[in-house]
């Protein structure tokens, strides 16, 4: 078949996959809620009303209130803009650096690889907590610190997995061909190796993303994440779970938003990843 036809078909495929479409719809919903939501629903997310703590949903509070009597819906809408980028960044940074380390380590091999992998083992054994406290000690408590701490915690797993997928590429014919053309190491890594392990990476990232948001929230009770009175969904969820028997909506609402986002990202990622795989794996001569 002709090349243009193939490409036209691939482009169509990109959105034709039901996975991708469901993902886009979910993320669209989340985007509308977090971007348009706060504009339409003009209620302060920080105004307390101490006598109305954990109020059930009502006309005054569509989703009820939290412990301090703040409007859950208002907080939910405002939290998205913080949660999503923070979760993405936290996992993104860890994944990027971890993958680079893994890719370089696996590709270079030998002593370097051995040493790096032992360092990764060591990193893996440090509790996220300790790392987080150290990061905060150096950078002060903020979302940024939390993002960095989560990144560091995520880094070793990415390094390991990416190393695993790079190993077989080391002796691949196209790498040898590039070597013959005197291709420098950085080009080998960035132009040849990385794009070829991108689909594995996408799957990993997609799985990690949801976790990022949640792990970030776990750090906030150490004073390491979002500083009050700001909230992200993770924090709302953590707080809500404490009162899950008395005011279940306070926990369920952020949980649902989180789930929608993570599902959206996952569908989109799986859709894209699957396409990348089909692209290259299917039509090899047997």
């Amino acid at each position, binding site marked *: 078949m002709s090349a243009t036809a193939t490409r036209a078909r691939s482009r169509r495929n990109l959105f034709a996959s039901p996975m991708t479409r469901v993902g886009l719809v979910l993320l669209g919903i989340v985007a509308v809620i977090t971007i348009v939501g706060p504009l339409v629903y003009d209620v302060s997310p920080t105004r307390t009303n101490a006598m109305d703590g954990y109020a059930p949903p009502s006309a005054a509070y569509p989703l009820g209130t939290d412990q301090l009597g703040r409007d859950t819906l208002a907080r939910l809408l405002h939290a998205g803009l913080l949660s999503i980028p923070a979760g993405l960044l936290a996992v993104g940074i860890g994944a990027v650096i971890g993958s680079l380390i893994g890719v370089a380590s696996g590709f270079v091999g030998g002593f370097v690889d051995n040493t790096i992998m032992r360092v990764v083992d060591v990193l893996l054994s*440090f509790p996220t907590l300790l790392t987080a406290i150290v990061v905060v000690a150096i950078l002060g408590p903020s979302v940024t610190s939390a993002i960095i701490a989560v990144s560091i915690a995520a880094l070793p797993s990415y390094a390991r997995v990416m190393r695993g997928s790079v190993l077989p590429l080391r002796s691949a014919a196209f790498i040898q061909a590039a070597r013959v053309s005197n291709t420098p190491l950085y080009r080998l890594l960035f132009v040849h190796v990385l794009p070829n392990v991108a689909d594995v990476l996408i799957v990993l990232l997609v799985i990690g993303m949801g976790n990022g948001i949640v792990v970030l929230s776990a750090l906030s009770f150490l004073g390491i994440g979002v500083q009050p009175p700001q909230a992200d969904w993770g924090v709302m969820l953590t707080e809500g779970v404490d009162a899950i*028997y008395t005011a279940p909506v306070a926990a369920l609402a952020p949980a649902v938003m989180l789930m929608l986002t993570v599902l959206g990202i996952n569908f989109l990622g799986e859709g894209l990843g699957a396409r990348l795989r089909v692209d290259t794996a299917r039509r090899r001569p047997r």
Partner: protein
Amino acid sequence: MSFVRFAARRVLVTVPAALAVLLITFAMIRLVPGDPVQVIAGTNLDPQVAEELREQLGLNDPLPVQFFDYLGQVLRGDLGTSFLTHQPVTTIVAERLPLTLLLTAAGVGVGLMLSLPIGIITALRHSRRRSTGLTFTAATTMLVATPDFLLGTVLVSVLAVYVQIFPVAGADGWTSLVLPALALGIPLAGIQARVVRTSVLDVLNRPFVRTLRAVGIPQRRLVARNVLPNASIPVLSLLSVEFGRLLAGALIVENIFSWPGLGTVIFDSIGRRDLPAVQGEILVVALLILAINLVMDIVYRIVDPRIALS
């Protein structure tokens, strides 16, 4: 022969790694603000008494002296004495480690018990039903993305409070292991199921499967004897990472279920700046993780003899 040499080499590599853990932990826990005496002191301890305590705990010695004293101790097999509980750190670890291992193993076991059938069955049906992929992604995503504290709480409220099948918390007998193991294992199963499915799919597409089908070997036997072992390596490598992570990280689940594992102890030790305890506990976890990776490497070689050649 080469196994022994390989293992010996890896064990040797472990020594500098362990030293690195020791040094980094030592440095990190001292780098961070807050010192043990201030934590012990709270708001009400006479500043003078606090100063005396600081001297008694040896915290006024220069750092290199502290480090080499500590190193010497460790080399003699003594991990020091906790500032807070006044117990040898080895005792603390010895008490907690078995429970941590038990919980981790149970969690991983639950993960496998769920993920293997899910992953395998969905892989086998992959091509027959288009919706399988969508449902599978949705289901596994939900498993992975449910925060452990939410999951734990829901499990407790349903299985321990509403229908009282399992105990709410504690560490009495196997019934009390079930809920924490589920809380750990279910999210793990989400990730695991994906890996299982992808690698089973991958193996199913390999030419040898066609060969064996052409010989007339029944599907079930083929899956059990040929497909699964071949698909096991990525699953194993994920397992080793997850196992390591759970060893020190089952914190929230331990807290919800009052499970006396290492996670909470490490958490407390760090929170209270109990320096000898932090150092000792992290060292032991690190050694365990290094050991797990070593064992996994050996397992790879047993599973896949080709690895030994390259």
